[in-house]
């Protein structure tokens, strides 16, 4: 799957789409492939606040479990309601319908420290 331009990426395979002072977070297609068929996503409560790098949830596949790390600091405005019944969206549309949370960013400048698409492509090719 192509790594979309225009998103920011973390070393832990999360992506961030900045929209003003809000940001949408998900995991990359690479990460979803590594995990295999995703069966459950544990998401935080609306209103919860996370510092950059802190665990905000858990994604579970048939044979693995992985923490989700906040790419930037922020407060949860929305969680993806579709994932309760269709966790497989994270596998099929990781950058679209499989989004995880929408944050109000505490410090939008933190996004600049993340990788761009080209750098993330390099990282996953090497790893």
């Amino acid at each position: 799957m192509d790594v979309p331009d225009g998103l920011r990426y973390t070393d832990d395979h999360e992506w961030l789409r900045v929209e003003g002072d809000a940001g949408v977070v998900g995991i990359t297609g690479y990460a979803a492939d590594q995990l295999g068929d995703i069966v459950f996503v544990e998401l935080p409560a609306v209103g919860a606040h996370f510092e950059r790098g802190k665990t905000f949830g858990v994604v579970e596949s048939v044979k693995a479990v992985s923490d989700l790390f906040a790419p930037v600091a922020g407060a949860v405005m929305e969680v993806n309601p579709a994932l309760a019944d269709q966790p497989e969206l994270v596998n099929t549309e990781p950058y679209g319908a499989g989004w995880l949370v929408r944050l109000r960013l505490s410090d939008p400048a933190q996004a600049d420290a993340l990788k761009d698409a080209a750098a993330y492509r390099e990282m996953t090719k090497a790893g």
Partner: protein
Amino acid sequence: MPYGPHTGDDRARMLEALGLTSVEPLFADIPTAVRAHGLDLPGPLPELELAQRLETLAARNQTGLASFLGAGVYRHYLPPVVDQMLLRGEFYTAYTPYQPEISQGTLQTIYEYQSMLAELTGLDVVSASHYDGASATAEAALMTVRATHRTRVLVSRAVHRHYVEATRTYFRGAELILDEIPTRDDGTTDLAALERELADPSRPVAGVVMGQPNAFGLLEPMADAARLAHAAGALFVAVVEPVSLAVLAPPGAYGADIAAGEGQPLGIPPQYGGPYLGILACTQPLVRQIPGRLVGATTDAEGRRAFVMTLRAREQDIRRERAASNICTNQALCALAATVYLATIGPHGLRDVAAAGAARARRLEDALTEAGAPRLHSAPYLNEFAISVPDAARVHDALLARGVLAGLPLGTWYPDDPLLRESLLVCATEVTTDDEIRRFGDALHDILADDAQDAAAQAGSGRYAPSGARS
């Protein structure tokens, strides 16, 4: 070596392939300082002698007693069908069903066990089982903590002592608080006290644990207790006995969130303590919190209905330090025993087992009351109750000498309670005979009459006979 196949030739062949003449080089990496040189143990016993040794030991256990001992483990009739299915090597020598394609036998029987316990408990999610009733209760208590993010659990004093103690041990590791709710004179849990404890805003409660029947054999106001728990934001855990669920309202009916219990009465002999069968069940919303194995139905690549372990990512091999529990086993063969037992005895049969126990217990109560030992408590019971007996521990010994195993002196579990110290917890089941009841009643009558005579004689002679020094 009794079960090894290797002849000298076999060993030589393997050694030759390795370019060795002895196995010693294969152990050379054990540092000399810690190298052991054999074991200081007796030599091997040929099978004939071993069989004799085992028979000798088994014969040293007294089995001819008229037993009225329950207290969490119950004598029931075990249809031979059960054991013959357990003796099938494909079941008992099988490994955990991690390769579902060649484990459909084990997987399907666990699914059937989960289904039947779901019906009996009235709860949707039943784990493939835990070690025993005590660890299941401890895990249930831990579930309430995880689900509510609170750190305090209330347990009735009338829950099986061992279950409470095991929960306390598990709680120590997790730095949680376990507080006991007292009982009333009638033997049931004091709901007013429960309500007061739940109302303390500085110490919110994660869960309330009560037994049905409770450890005194008595029936508790479970629906009322569940309501009180929920009103305070706590979960309600019912500790249950599975045969009783054929005739008593199940946990799902009175609002329990979690049920725990001991499945030994379902086709498993007493065996002096195990292996037993820990029942753990919960409502659907708690499914991700329940520890232990779960088996689910699914299809294979060609559309066949089949069974597989599922929701595996909760378990220790995947979650490691984030797993809810470290449990790796399920008591699969014991769950199989319960499944075969329930299939054999059927719903009417299970109801009959429960009802027959109740009927026998009422006969027992009459006989013991007539012998001079009335019930201690007034609350209703199913097939187990406590009787008042002065100097209960000594009377228990005296009855044993007359071939009657007269239940459990409750002073063993409640040494600080003067009333319970002077009581015996007795039960009856469908296997208790009229003859056994008569033996118990007659023996008890004689012992109490002798005691009364002794006391009268001593009083008359001006010397006071101490009421016994058993601890």
